[in-house]
């Protein structure tokens, strides 16, 4: 952990580190004995999947008749349990556990479908592919996408996943890129790379004409909002999303997944991720989606003990999980283990108005004011008068907070609550409309 420097007048700086010091060869984790998949959503009756059902590798699993969400099984085996799981902010999930068989069988559904290289096929099968290609955004007629940004960098610190994918899977990326261009009809592609990866990244797109841009090395330059402002020259309106501006982001891994899927006629099920050890040593890992993180710890000789912290994602924006059974997800770019002694706790002190957060905020949010209103539950005031929605959720404010307030969490909670309020209002309006 980077501590405050003695000369506190200078603003702390976080540099994105490149893959230096990360072994080039990833640790390959064999298929797990038990896998788990998380479906987003409430539990309902009449699930299509029951305990005892057989599933095959690459099979598309839908849990309910009318549901759009699906997962792609990464293993062959028998469903051993279907149970609810609660994520961050009480988000409901349904956890499907699978006991893995020794003999692997591959589902042929995608192999047939992939002969027809269309956007619909991709949407139907690749939403759960490593890197989560965001293909749904292309079918919104109100928001036509004109530019695809292919990001070769990871948002958070210490993560080396995307640079590795760029180095090792260039062919798939190129293939995926041409497929993406073809099925979406989007011609303008911008590749975002760090200075040190320029050589590798310049091979992307080959002769087909992509724009290559270099991203700054200081956190949070790799955030979509920062890229939009600094590189694309189109600053996002507060709380807006890139798709509104006709731009969508793909990670290098997501593009490689598209290429791999259509190239092999098989949906890729192996996720590349960075394992950040207690001493911040990093290892690259390739594991199947659904592998419990316990298996990864065992394979990499990581001892996890009581009161440690397991973080899915990076040190500034990740989320802690409470169980070693948590599976690798298609968007799990990193797993970080923090020793119990390094865990920094928050306090219940109020804001002392020191201004550190205001000075470090990359979005120039008046954090000292926002946090006061958030603490008092005045979320609307925080949003209307103090630019709550300009926050890009980089976590730097909490990192520097003298009073050790959980500022970042206050802001996220405020956004969540406002979202709930808006949903409730919409509901009552609808009710009134139907009553009338």
């Amino acid at each position, binding site marked *: 952990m980077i501590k405050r420097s003695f000369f506190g007048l200078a603003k702390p700086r976080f540099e994105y580190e490149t893959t230096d010091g990360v072994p080039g060869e990833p640790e390959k984790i064999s298929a797990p004995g038990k896998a788990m998949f998380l479906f987003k959503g409430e539990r309902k009756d009449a699930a299509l999947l029951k305990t005892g059902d057989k599933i095959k590798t690459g099979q598309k699993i839908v849990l309910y008749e009318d549901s759009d969400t699906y997962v792609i099984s990464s293993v062959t085996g028998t469903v051993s349990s279907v149970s609810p799981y609660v994520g961050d902010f009480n988000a409901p999930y349904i956890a499907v556990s699978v006991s893995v068989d020794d003999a692997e069988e591959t589902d042929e559904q995608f192999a047939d479908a992939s002969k027809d290289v269309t956007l619909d096929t991709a949407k139907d099968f690749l939403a759960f592919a490593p890197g989560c290609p965001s293909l749904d955004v292309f079918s919104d007629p109100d928001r036509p996408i004109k530019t695809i940004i292919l990001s070769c960098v990871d948002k958070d610190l210490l993560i080396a996943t995307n640079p590795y994918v760029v180095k090792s899977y260039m062919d798939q990326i190129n293939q995926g890129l041409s497929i993406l261009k073809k099925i979406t009809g989007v011609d303008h592609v911008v590749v975002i790379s760090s200075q040190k990866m320029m050589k590798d990244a310049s091979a992307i797109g080959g002769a087909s004409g992509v724009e290559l841009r270099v991203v700054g090395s200081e956190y949070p330059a790799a955030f979509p909002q920062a890229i939009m402002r600094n590189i694309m020259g189109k600053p996002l309106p507060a709380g807006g999303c890139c798709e509104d501006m006709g731009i969508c982001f793909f990670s290098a891994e997501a593009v490689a997944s598209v290429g791999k899927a259509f190239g092999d006629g098989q949906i890729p099920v192996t996720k590349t991720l960075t394992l950040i050890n207690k001493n911040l040593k990093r290892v690259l890992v390739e594991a199947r989606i659904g592998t419990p993180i316990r298996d990864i710890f065992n394979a990499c000789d990581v001892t996890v003990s009581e009161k440690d912290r397991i973080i899915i994602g990076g040190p500034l924006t990740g989320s802690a999980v409470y169980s070693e059974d948590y599976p690798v997800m298609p968007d799990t770019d990193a797993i970080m283990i923090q020793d119990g002694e390094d865990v920094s706790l928050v306090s219940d002190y109020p804001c002392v108005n020191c201004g550190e957060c205001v000075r470090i905020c*990359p979005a120039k949010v008046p954090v000292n004011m926002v946090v006061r209103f958030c603490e008092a539950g005045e979320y609307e005031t925080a949003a209307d008068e103090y630019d709550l929605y300009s926050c890009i959720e980089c976590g730097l404010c909490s990192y520097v907070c003298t009073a050790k307030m959980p500022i970042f969490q206050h802001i996220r909670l405020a956004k969540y609550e406002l979202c709930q309020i808006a949903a409730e209002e919409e509901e009552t309006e609808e009710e009134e409309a139907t009553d009338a």
Partner: protein
Amino acid sequence: MLSQKKFIVSHAPFWHNGSSISEQSYNIIFAALPAVIAGICYYGTGALAVVAMAVSTAILWELAFNLVAKRPISIGDGNAAVIGLVFAMLMPAATPWWVVVTGTFIAIVVGKQIFGGIGGNPFHPVAVAIAIMMLSWKNCFDFDHALMGYELDFPMIIYPLAALKNFGVSAVEGLTAADLIMGKQVGGIGATFGLGLIIGGFYLIIRGFIRWEISVSFLLGLVVTAFLFNMSDPSKYASPIFHLFTGYTLIGAFFLATEDSSSPVNCVPMLLYGALGGVMTVLIRNIGVYVDGVIFAILIINLLNPLLDKIRPKAMGA
């Protein structure tokens, strides 16, 4: 999902730079030590008694308020000690004990705790206390009166600002900048040793515990205004150097105006806030009725703080 091991689950970010309120408080106390020790050397055990009394009663008042209000005990963060120490630095060495106890009560309870404790006070607690004490017991702040019994080896044994106010510039002509900066002048225990205050302030600035914008603009505002007055009538108004090194100027610039809760956080507001403080100080000293204007100037800029802090950069995408 049963898990045998229990992990710590909390929210992002998972790192912290290790700064804390207590670190800040103890560094402020450390930075104030040169000036305090010089004061004790000049004024003897009387000064030490005032300092010890002020710090200890400030902590006790805070503890008492914590207990009465059934709030978590907050004396560990060192903020009460800082308030006690700064209060003592502003008092003359011969302050009676009951004045110190009353003063720290006003600072801690009226100045800070009734507003909700640390971070909630709109004014610097010590400035509030000193202002109330000044208006209530004038004699305690009449340094010449308070220090009557002292044998001081100073070039001038009357309070420079009072001499200036009562007898004009000619009365303070004998004072050199070197004497003033070395603390060879009558004044508060920790407010006279200019060199020590500058070293302490500089330390706090480079360590990032106070903001240079406020201190520098405060001093600049004071010097420029004093210079303009001095230019207009040198026989009536003292030089900027005199104003810079006398009274509460330096302790005000480095220890009073910079208090977190009552000062702005954005760059332009900080500069305005400081500069206004400097200007007000000289205005009160030169054309007001009070001998020293720092305390009232600080209270006025404290009052302006929320308004000034509305001047802020446009947020991203707003």
